[in-house]
């Protein structure tokens, strides 16, 4: 390992510009003549739009245009789409309702864009937007997914009777039924996976520009995957052909999934720019982010786990209703199906699993992938069932887990996934040591002496990352392949530019990808630049989500570096007048085996370009190679998180007393960055468990529409985390990487709730476990004071 190679805790190269305020975020970009967009949004969750009167607004100072769904349709701007086809049990395709970028005839959630005002200044646009008169006929709304399919409930889209998008299933229902019939013990739980608002620090922004000379559109946006945005806006929305549309996603301040999707505002910014003949910028206000960024989770589940007499899990079944909101967002259909039910085996050998998922429309904002996407929901189901099962059967929760762990690999689960490698016992064992599990009883007594209830909870989670083998996801309904590309451009002076189809919005790719190049080519990390986020620079890529950039994006880079090295060896052979097969490359130096003849990396790079030492007919000048890498399997990061909580029974307040995370991410490229990812993920998971929850009232108003009412986790909500890793190398990619970006958010909710329920002695608590909720649960269970055990 070199000082800046794989495994080194290299400081993040990008941080200097970020912490000194020199980043270039989309809102930092301004175009000459730029105008501003302000959206008129529906204040009603469900309403017919009878008319829109825009004359007065159009006459307001500075106004360049007031546009509505009628103009959008007249210009034949296509609908937004969901790009993953799910079929119901009966074989019928999912019921995707039209999703125009401006509501057409009907508004379906509070915040649904109904019109847009373009004006010379933002204040003018906003003033004029207040003068747009929309005549609504308010309709009754439905917001609760558990109610959405009932008879007599408001119908949101004609194409989807009973608000049902699909009724999907996975697994063998009969085999599961029979396993349950002969089971010794069955644990049953009703679970709600609470709805979350992503709240990236940087709100979404879009700037549309249209060049009348070349007929080319440019979109600057806050995207995790600019090429996919371009593909959808070109091929489905029909704004322009791909080669006439450039999408640039510059520095992006956090995404957590919410910036994967193609949103109405970016379509409107492009379209409006052409209509008014000026660049158009839209920057979301935080209130708009709350209403209109795709939310996460929102599952209602009944789940059961069956055990035999020895405490072995014999089967699991789950019935989930997933709320997809008012419209199907870009990847919404895949989240509660193939990203969820396929992980219901957890770390355990479960012979039979059956899962049914009904996806429903409601009059709420769209729901799509959010950090973990489906896998936190699966982990919550499995880890709550195992924990409660252990309690009901009087077994130690760690021991019950150990007994049921998958121990031999590869392991085929009954729900598609083929686990390649892992050592679940190793992470559990290490976590038990670090957490001093043996000393828990002592700490519980100590807490009791202070009038506090202490509890411990486990989460031995698994996730599927490194998405994904293209043919496999294609067979499951994906509309795209999930490979990744990389291009390595070596300059004549030996410095290197890497163009990757991944996109960094907090992950630190400018450092970790450079570490790989430094490691392979033996050059200083500062001689490497990582370029991403511009469709005119990077040929194509699938972007960053699902913890895929290390496992897939860096694997593509390995392939490209292999080609660069092979070409450079040819150049070196000519320079050193040796056979190509005799050239060795090590530590940035090409040498002829068995001789002292050598050439440095920089000399070879220069010779590749000046091309003085070889004939252009036998070897092409230049040193630039590209590669596409398609993974052969998902990767399976897994680990053990142990949470200890201390609860004040008088107020119901929960404090995280200790946190241990032992994760197996495969080979770690930069341990400092990985630790940061675990910290962030755990904070978000703790946020879901204790603080966060999007609440709509019965009329469809978002009650938690600002940070005054929606609680994000803060630094002082968390103790110092004990973070460690165990390593089993991923066999399916060249670097052995599994991925780490979502683990904390996947593991944490179950660990927290398992700890709280251990402390309060009742399982009846929902997320977020706010002080009021914990107090009410204690009161209902008739427990209020700690008992020294």
């Amino acid at each position, binding site marked *: 390992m070199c000082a800046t190679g794989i495994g080194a805790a290299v400081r993040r190269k990008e941080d200097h510009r970020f912490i000194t305020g020199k980043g270039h975020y989309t809102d930092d970009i301004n175009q000459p003549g730029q105008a501003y967009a302000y959206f008129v949004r529906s204040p009603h969750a469900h309403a017919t739009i009878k008319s829109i009167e825009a004359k007065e607004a159009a006459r307001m100072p500075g106004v360049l245009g007031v546009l509505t769904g009628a103009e959008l349709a007249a210009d034949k701007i296509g609908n937004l789409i969901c790009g993953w086809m799910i079929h119901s049990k009966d074989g019928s395709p999912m019921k995707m309702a039209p999703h125009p970028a401006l509501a057409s005839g009907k508004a379906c959630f509070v915040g649904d864009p109904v019109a847009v005002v373009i004006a010379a200044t933002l204040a003018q646009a906003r003033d004029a937007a207040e003068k747009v008169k929309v005549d609504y006929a308010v309709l009754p709304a439905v917001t609760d997914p558990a109610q959405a399919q009932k008879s007599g409930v408001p119908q949101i889209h004609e194409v989807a009777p009973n608000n049902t998008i699909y009724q999907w299933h996975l697994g063998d229902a009969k085999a599961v039924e029979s396993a349950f019939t002969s089971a010794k013990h069955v644990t049953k739980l009703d679970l709600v996976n609470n709805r979350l608002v992503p709240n990236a620090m940087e709100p979404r922004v879009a700037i549309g520009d249209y060049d009348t000379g070349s007929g080319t559109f440019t979109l600057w946006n806050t995207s995790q995957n600019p090429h996919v945005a371009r593909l959808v806006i070109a091929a489905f929305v029909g704004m322009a052909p791909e080669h006439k549309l450039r999408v640039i996603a510059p520095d992006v301040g956090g995404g957590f999934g919410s910036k994967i999707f193609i949103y109405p505002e970016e379509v409107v910014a492009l379209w409006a720019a052409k209509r008014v003949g000026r660049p158009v910028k839209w920057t979301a206000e935080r209130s708009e982010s709350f209403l209109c960024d795709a939310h996460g989770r929102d599952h209602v589940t009944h789940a059961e786990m069956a055990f035999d007499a020895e405490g072995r899990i014999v089967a699991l079944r789950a019935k989930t209703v997933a709320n997809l909101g008012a419209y199907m967002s870009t990847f919404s259909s895949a989240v509660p199906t193939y990203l969820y039910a396929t992980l219901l085996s957890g770390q355990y050998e479960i012979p039979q699993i059956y899962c049914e998922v009904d996806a429903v429309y409601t009059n709420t904002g769209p729901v799509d992938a959010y950090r973990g996407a489906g896998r936190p929901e699966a982990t919550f189901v499995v880890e709550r069932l195992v924990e409660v099962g252990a309690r009901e059967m009087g077994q130690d929760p760690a021991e019950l887990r150990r007994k049921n762990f998958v121990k031999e690999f590869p392991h085929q689960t009954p729900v598609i996934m083929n686990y390649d490698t892992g050592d679940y016992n190793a992470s559990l064992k290490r976590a038990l040591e670090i957490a001093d599990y043996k000393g828990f009883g002592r700490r519980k007594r100590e807490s009791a002496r202070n009038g506090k209830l202490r509890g411990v909870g486990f989460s031995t989670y698994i996730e599927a990352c490194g998405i994904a083998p293209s043919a496999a996801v294609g067979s499951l309904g994906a509309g795209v392949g999930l490979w990744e590309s990389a291009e390595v451009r070596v300059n004549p002076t030996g410095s290197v530019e890497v163009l990757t189809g991944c996109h960094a919005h907090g992950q630190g790719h400018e450092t970790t990808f450079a570490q790989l190049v430094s490691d392979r080519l033996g050059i200083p990390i500062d001689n490497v630049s990582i370029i991403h986020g511009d469709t005119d620079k990077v040929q194509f890529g699938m972007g960053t989500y699902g913890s895929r950039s290390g496992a897939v994006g860096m694997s593509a880079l390995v392939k490209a570096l292999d080609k660069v090295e092979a070409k450079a060896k040819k150049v070196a052979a000519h320079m050193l007048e040796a056979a190509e097969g005799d050239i060795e490359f090590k530590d940035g130096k090409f040498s002829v085996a068995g001789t002292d003849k050598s050439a440095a990396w920089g000399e070879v790079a220069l010779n590749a370009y000046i091309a003085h030492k070889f004939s252009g007919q036998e070897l092409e000048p230049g040193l630039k190679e590209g590669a596409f890498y398609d993974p052969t399997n998902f990767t399976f990061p897994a680990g053990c998180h142990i949470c200890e909580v201390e609860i004040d029974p008088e107020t119901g*307040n929960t404090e995280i007393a200790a946190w241990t995370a032992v994760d197996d991410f495969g080979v770690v490229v930069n341990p400092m960055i990985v630790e940061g990812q675990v910290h962030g993920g755990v904070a978000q998971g703790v946020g879901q468990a204790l603080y966060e929850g999007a609440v709509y009232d019965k009329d469809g108003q978002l009650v938690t529409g600002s940070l005054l*009412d929606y*609680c994000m986790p803060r630094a002082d909500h968390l103790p110092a985390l004990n973070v460690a890793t165990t390593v089993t190398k991923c066999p399916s990619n060249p670097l052995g990487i599994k991925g780490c970006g979502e683990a904390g958010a996947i593991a944490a909710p179950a660990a927290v709730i398992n700890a709280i329920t251990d402390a309060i002695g009742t399982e009846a608590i929902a997320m977020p476990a*706010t002080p*009021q909720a914990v107090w009410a649960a204690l009161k209902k269970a008739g427990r209020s004071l700690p008992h020294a055990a």
Partner: protein
Amino acid sequence: MYAFTFRRPETLRQAANLLSKNGDAKPLAGGHTLLPTMKLRLASPPELIDLSRIEGLEGIELTGRALTIGAMARHADVHGSPVVQQAIPVLAKLAGMIGDPAVRHMGTIGGSIANNDPSADYPAACLGLGATIVTNKRRIKADDFFTGMFSTALEPAEIITKVSFPIPKKAAYQKFRNQASRYALVGVFVAKRGGDIRVAVTGAGANGVFRIQSFEEALKKRFSPKSLEGMTIPADGMNSDIHGSAEYRAHLVGVLARRAVAEAVGK
């Protein structure tokens, strides 16, 4: 935010005149409630009268048996003031619990009590300590000053100049925060000064800050948390929202009152 006229008078009289001339004008005393509300276009005063340039509104001094704090003293000033820390330490501590550093360096005591947010901390301190609110026109007892949610006894063009706090023998404040906003979901201020015992509650009441007579009577017999054991207040009249039902808030009032008394007596 809509356009408005910004005025920055240099004397109290000028400020009062400006406020008299335009009944819709708003005094600006930190603005950490008013300005965000204006940015959201939920308030649109045509004129803001900034009080920050008026001399003599920021002082903190101990005079005889009272601590006087100028209306424009910022929360951070009160929190960091050795005079306050010495005279009424709980008041310095309370000021340090308000909002975040940005709020504490801009927000003022006068602005806070004039706004009388039902979840603000200072109203509980004023009522709990039996403070006197001094204006450009008169002196108002805290018991008469807070007249309901976001409502006070202040008349048009009446400007708070300072707040005078009698020094208690024992006092403590217990704040249970709304997790999201960090305002008081419930805050209980208790103080003992001779025979005068006060228990003031913020955050909980639907009509803003209030005193609990039954708790005060019980504590007059013996100023000890034990005196409040088993005592509750009815949930009627409590605020109720997603963060706390009326029942939960009423329960917290009892818990926090006992804890505040325990803190005040040093247990």
